Structures are given as structure tokens and as C-alpha cells.
């Protein structure tokens, strides 16, 4: 399988600040990739680099084997819903579909109209009058009716209420199940990503901390609890992500490929959310005193 997104040493600097640095990734096709990280971690920057809205300061990025946004053909292969799902406020829903027909050779008008109908959107309504959820659905429709090979969604559900969020993810899943399409979506809402993603990238402070299939992550990470003892006596193949101690007990999140057989340790499975939080606090502990920056939107 070829990589849908491949980057080497990718970095992006805004004036003095590096929003993303030394990002080397290779995402296999056919996954729904969740991109998570605290605000200001560089998620939007990475996605904008992938769509060609930004140019990298250092390193290279290839999407579906080509330079992002290099040609109309390349643009046709990638669908993108930007943060806050921008639409032309003055144009009606039907106008949006119509202009897309003109601008995209692979436009699937039936798919678009079906979706609009099923969503119950009035084609004559102006996009500026739609609710946030409807607007997000319209933006998603515009992106998927292009019939892209890769769909990139930047915080598509952040501003939606729980019901709209579920509907949005449901329609996204229906589409990915029916078509051969890879998805990369960013979010800081782990609970939602957990339901739909089978691959996870964790970005903290502009650096990639984790990039692996969800199954592999869950299979290699264990929460172990045992009598508090000297860290030197912990098994050598354990990579300790986080540790918390009481007077007598230690609870460790470890990464290990081997099962834990030692009866001195009680082993628990860990959820994706806890796992991500552990990595985030590890990264934050590594850089003490650093307060999370505000979300970079532009």
C-alpha cells in the first residue's frame, strides 16, 4: 500500500515561532486517521501543509505521491473541510453545489444531491442562514462529492452540539465505508475520535509524539499496578510513559511488546483517551513552565 501522506523533516515557522518541527510521517492508505493534540500543537498547520494552503519552511511533504495543490489533477484528489467549515454566506445551498460542478471534473452531482436531500437541507437557503451543524454537513458534502482519494477535515465537529456531532460522524463513516477513501481528521475531542479512528497521530508542541494504528497502541500499552519499588527493578523492556505513586503503590503506563507475566504487577487495559492524556502530560513534563499556546487558526 502506498502512503497517502508522507513527510520528511517537515517544519513550519511563523516569524519566530515554530508551529511544527521535524515532522516525519508516513500514513498508509485506507485508514481513518485521528490527529490529536492540545490547542496550538500544530494540527491545523500540518493539515494546511497537506492541502497546500501553506508551504513548508523546512522538509518535504507529499500527498498521494504528489506535491500538495500543485495542479488541478492533484487538487481533485484531495477533499478538504477547513476549520469552522467556511462557506459563502451569500450563496444558497444549490449555488454551492452548482459552482462545485463547474470547478471539479470528478464532481458526483447525484451523491451531493442525495446527501443534501437526506440531510433535509433546503437547496434555496443561503449558507449564512444555516446552523453550525448544517453548515458543517454542507462543507462535508462539498468535500466528498469531489470523490477524493483523501479527505482532510480540520476540527470538523468542534463547534457542533453532541447530536449534530454524532450525525456528522455517522455520515462520514457511511461515506468511508462505501467508498475507497482515506480520512485525516483533527480534533481535540478524544471520545469522538475513539469511535471512528483506527490510526492516531498525537502532536504536542509542534512535534509528533505518537503515530500508530489504534489497535497497535492499545495492544502494546498497559497500565500496571504493583508494590512501590526502585525503578531500576522494573523490567528492562518497559518504556514507561507515565508513573504515579502512592506511599505503597506504583501505577505505571508502560509500552511493551511482550505480555506482562510477573504476578507482582496487576495488568489493566487502557483506553485511548487515557493513553493520549498520558502522552500529553509526559510531553508537558518534559517542557516545564511552558503554558499551552493559544490555538493558531491562521
Amino acid at each position, binding site marked *: 500500500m502506498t502512503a497517502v501522506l508522507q513527510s520528511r523533516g517537515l517544519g513550519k515557522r511563523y516569524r519566530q515561532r515554530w508551529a511544527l518541527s521535524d515532522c516525519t510521517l508516513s500514513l498508509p492508505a485506507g485508514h481513518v486517521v485521528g490527529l490529536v493534540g492540545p490547542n496550538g500543537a500544530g494540527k491545523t498547520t500540518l493539515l494546511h501543509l497537506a492541502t497546500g494552503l501553506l508551504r513548508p519552511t523546512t522538509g518535504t511533504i507529499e500527498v498521494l505521491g504528489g506535491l500538495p*495543490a500543485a495542479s488541478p489533477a492533484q*487538487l481533485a484528489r484531495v477533499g478538504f473541510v477547513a*476549520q469552522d467549515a*467556511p462557506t459563502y454566506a451569500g450563496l444558497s445551498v444549490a449555488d454551492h453545489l452548482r*459552482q*462545485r460542478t463547474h470547478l471539479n471534473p470528478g464532481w458526483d452531482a447525484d451523491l451531493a444531491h442525495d446527501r443534501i436531500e437526506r440531510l433535509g437541507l433546503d437547496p434555496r437557503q443561503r449558507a449564512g442562514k444555516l446552523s453550525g451543524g448544517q453548515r458543517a454537513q454542507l462543507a462535508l458534502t462539498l468535500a466528498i462529492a469531489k470523490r477524493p482519494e483523501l479527505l482532510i477535515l480540520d476540527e470538523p465537529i468542534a463547534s457542533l452540539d453532541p447530536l449534530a456531532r454524532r450525525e456528522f460522524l455517522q455520515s462520514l463513516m457511511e461515506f468511508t465505508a462505501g467508498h475507497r477513501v482515506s480520512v485525516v481528521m483533527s480534533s481535540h475531542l478524544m471520545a469522538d475520535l475513539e469511535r471512528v479512528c483506527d490510526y492516531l497521530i498525537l502532536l504536542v508542541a509542534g512535534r509528533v509524539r505518537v503515530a500508530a494504528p489504534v489497535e497497535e497502541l492499545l495492544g502494546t500499552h498497559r497500565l500496571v499496578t504493583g508494590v512501590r519499588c526502585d525503578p531500576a527493578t522494573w523490567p528492562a523492556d518497559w518504556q514507561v510513559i507515565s508513573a504515579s505513586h502512592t506511599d505503597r503503590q506504583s501505577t505505571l503506563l508502560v509500552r511493551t511488546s511482550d505480555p506482562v507475566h510477573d504476578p507482582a504487577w496487576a495488568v489493566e487495559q487502557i483506553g485511548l483517551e487515557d493513553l493520549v492524556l498520558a502522552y500529553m502530560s509526559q510531553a508537558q513534563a518534559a517542557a516545564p513552565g511552558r503554558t499551552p499556546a493559544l490555538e493558531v487558526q491562521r
Partner: protein
Amino acid sequence: MIWLTWRQFRTQAWVAAAALAVIAVALALTGLNLAHLYDATGAASCQAHGDCGTLSTTFMNHVKASLTYKALYDGGVAILYAAPALIGIFWGAPLVTREVETGTFRLAWNQSVTRTRWLAVKLGLVGLAAMATAGLFSLMIGWWASPIDRALGLAADRNGSSVINRFSPLLFGARGITPLGYAAFAFALGVTLGVLIRRTVPAMAATLAVFTGALISMSLWVRPHLIAPLHAISALNTANIVGVMSGTGSGSPMTVAGGVNLPGAWVLSNQTIGASGRVFTGPATQACASGSIQACNAHIGSLHLRQLVTYQPAVRYWAFQWYETAIFLALALVLAGFCVWWIRRRRLS
């Protein structure tokens, strides 16, 4: 892309069309009467009578007596200067900034259309509309005002260089094809500043400021030198003196201005040269400081003054129109090219 551009531009296009229609009606209702008046006063056929100065003055006196004509004439000049500025402000500046402010350029840039084409179509279509609008305004107002403009051109200039004709700086940019060049330039300027500033309101303000500055610089410092001006030097005819300014005492400074008779020309300067070869500045003698006009004129005649007129002759009018329009069109093209380059090379976000 063409459809989307039109769909986004529709409102502004209707506003421009409505303005054109309203002004066309106002001009049509009064323009025929004005043309008739021009014929009736004999100014139209003055060449046959050989008395253009008087006949055109008669016509102008009729025009000046009518508030409507005066208002429409001055209004027409104002419109032709305002239209390019408004086009730059309301069509040019928001063209890209609006998409940046609402984030829709991210929507647009991810269609199967490169951003180069996205911008090129917007620039091309709206730019052509801008030129067409300014061109129509100029055509309509130019037709309406043509009797007055011709009368001004015919009127013998009895007053130094102050009489206005279509070649003089105030009217030059409001006649012929220059409004077309201004409109293209103002539009491209608005887009460029929008791309650089990325905020609509500051870009609008900057567009107005830079456009006004460009027009003023053009008429003050560039236009007079587009073609080297002609100089006419002649002995000062004492019968043709239009102004003597002098102090009250003998020996105080004094200036003399001779009349210029160059119908339709753009007089850049009109100097009176003394025997020393420099501009004559006095001193005033008793004859001029306190004597009669005849005595003063006789004294001036004895000084052997010469008159040096620097001017652009009337026949160069269209050459200047073409030069100026070409300069602004070229500037517009450079700015448009810069916008495309900037959007290809740089980011908007």
C-alpha cells in the same frame, strides 16, 4: 470559476449598472437641449463667422446662467474622478480580503482549480467590468459636456493661463479614455493592497490614499513632461496686457502678465522676461505706481519686455490621453502580475 466570480460580483455589478442608468437618464434629458443651445447661439458654426471668441462666450454665459447645466457639468467631472476610486475601494479591495476574512479562500483553493486561475479569473472579469463602467461613464458624460468643452477650447484666453479647457489638469483626467486607465489601475491597486493587508477596511482606506496620491503626482510631476513642452517667445504686446501688479510706491516690485491666445492648449507657464533675460519683477516707476493705465502701458512698452509661454499645443491632446491611459494600464498589469505572483509564492493565511 467564471460563474462563481459573477455570482460573488453580482451585487456590485447591479449597483454600477443602476448608477449608470440613472446618470444616463439625467444626461439624456438635458443633453439634447444643451446641444441645441450650442447650435442656436451660433457657437457651433462660429468658424464660418470668424468670431468664435464672442459666440462661444455668449454660449458660455447661457450655460453659466443655468444651475442645472452647471451642476451636471461639475457633477460629471466629479463622477469621472470618483468612479475609479470607488471601483478600487469597493470592487478591488474586498476581492480577496473578503475571502480571507470569511475563510472561504480555503474552500475555493481546494477545488480542482489552481489558485493562479482562481485569481486570474477574478482579476480579469472584474477588471474588465471596471474598465467598461468607467468607459461608459466617460462616453456619456463626454458626449453631454462636448458643447461646453468645445466652447472652452475656442474661447480666446484673455486671462493668462487660468482658463480651463479639456487639456488643463482639472479636466484632463475626466475626459476621453483616461478614466478607463484610472479604473483599471484603481481596481488592481485595491486588489494588491487587499492581498498585502488582508483586512477589508484598512485596504479600502489605503486604496483611496494611494490612488489619490498617484493621480495628483501624475498631473503635477509626470504629465507635463510626457512630451517636451513648446516654448513661444515674442515681444510683449502692450495692447494685450491682462494684468499689472505693482506696489504703491516708485521702486516697489511689479509684475506684468501678457495674454495668451492658444485655444485648446495646456499653458504650463506664462512669464514676462525683462531686458536682463530674467523674469521681470520691477521696479515700478511713478507711471505705474500711481499714474493712469495708459501712462503705465506706455512705460511698459518702453521696457522692451518679452513674453515666454511654455505650453503643450492642442494637437497633442490625444497623444497625451493615450500616453496617460497606457501608463495606468501598464501599472495595473504590473500590480495584477504581482498579485498572482504573491498568491503563488506566499500564503494568504
